[in-house]
């Protein structure tokens, strides 16, 4: 604890801002097996069986009455691993997505990941946040270098807050595929790296940058 003082803890507090680079796509359930096989071949954890996950995500919204439309609400995503109840809960803030021009291969957005204690839901309610929507995501996780690939199925929860197997209902007949990298600001070479990786998954799945604001 030598030297523990303000300057010491400040060093921890001001971490360079991180950005998430993201490509998304989807694959029909029937062909998911083939994709998983290919990912096992391409990714770093090839010799082991793919890592599975089962997460419950609740999205909380806080509204304000400021005049500018861009800041009328803020969303925080709270994630919790259902298969590892002892793991810390997780708050994620995602900033405004920048789609950019054609020369940029991926969607880029500010990203904050904070691990926290399990009373986070009560805490957000106290702060005035309201639950906006919730879902369960189950699937497989791969990594290649700093790239992260998630193949997951999204389930609607028939009873609010209940994550039992028999109350979950799949939303679609397909799996969502996400390729992402979280890195400090200004690393534009990642886009190229991700594009090249996405090329190798064609034609099974086409990973693209989606402008979420333009979705119907």
């Amino acid at each position, binding site marked *: 604890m030598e030297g*523990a003082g303000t300057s010491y803890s400040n060093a921890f507090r001001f971490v360079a801002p991180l950005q998430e680079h993201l490509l998304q796509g989807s694959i029909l359930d029937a062909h998911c097996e083939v994709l998983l096989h290919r990912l096992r071949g391409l990714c770093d954890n090839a010799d082991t069986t793919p890592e599975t996950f089962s997460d419950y995500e609740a999205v909380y919204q806080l509204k304000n*009455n400021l005049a500018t439309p861009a800041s009328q609400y803020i969303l925080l995503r709270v994630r919790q691993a259902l298969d590892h109840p002892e793991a810390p809960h997780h708050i994620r803030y995602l900033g405004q997505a920048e789609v950019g021009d054609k020369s940029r291969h991926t969607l880029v957005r500010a990203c904050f990941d904070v691990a926290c204690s399990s009373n986070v839901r009560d805490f957000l309610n106290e702060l005035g946040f309201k639950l906006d929507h919730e879902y369960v995501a189950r699937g497989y996780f791969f990594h290649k270098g700093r790239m992260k690939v998630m193949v997951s199925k999204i389930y609607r929860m028939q009873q609010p807050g209940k994550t039992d197997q028999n109350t979950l209902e799949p939303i679609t007949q397909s799996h969502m595929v996400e390729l992402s990298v979280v890195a400090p600001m200004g690393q534009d070479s990642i886009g190229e790296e991700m594009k090249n990786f996405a090329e190798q998954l064609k034609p099974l799945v086409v990973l693209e940058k989606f402008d979420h604001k333009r979705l119907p």
Partner: protein
Amino acid sequence: MGVTCVYSYPVPDGKSGQAVVEILQRQIELLGALRSGHFCVDCDTFQSILQTSINVQPKTVYILHNSEQPASCFAITDTSLCLTADTLFDGLMHQLKNYYQQRKNAKMEAKGQRYELGDFILKVGSASLAGSFKGIIVEVEYCPCMVAVDCWGLMKELLQSVVGSVADQPPPILKNRQDELYSPSITVSQYLDIFNNFRKLSATNQIGR
């Protein structure tokens, strides 16, 4: 990490805070405790700027850091709910700036010397509000035990040889949670309680003038 008791130590009339801190430090050193660096606990106040109706009280969130848990950040609401998170939570509070704003000149800090004495960690320091001295803080931690009710007797004995009758009772926050498994969030809650008392005192002093 173990059970921790935090007390504010009264400054007698006619003595300066610094002089009392030095007396306490000498007493602790006489017990055989060894200096082991410094400690710092700080507290920022954030207030909601959300006005849904005029009658609604603004909400307050206190963000605390403790040098004993340098990678953690503690956020405590008006209703004493304490969230423990990574230090990145500070960045998240910054993202909420359209909803919660940091109150200016409200930063409280407790800083001072840290000692080790066998299984105990002792800390003596001064608390300040926006840089001006507000009072003295004494903290004692008994590392091998996680349940307050099991070690209060032992802690009381050591505490009383340093601060005397100030430590007749466990700190109010700990008193209600004596059977619980201790966690660092209880320590910062004790600090916040003391900080808020200092704040109230300085507010009433200002009105009295």
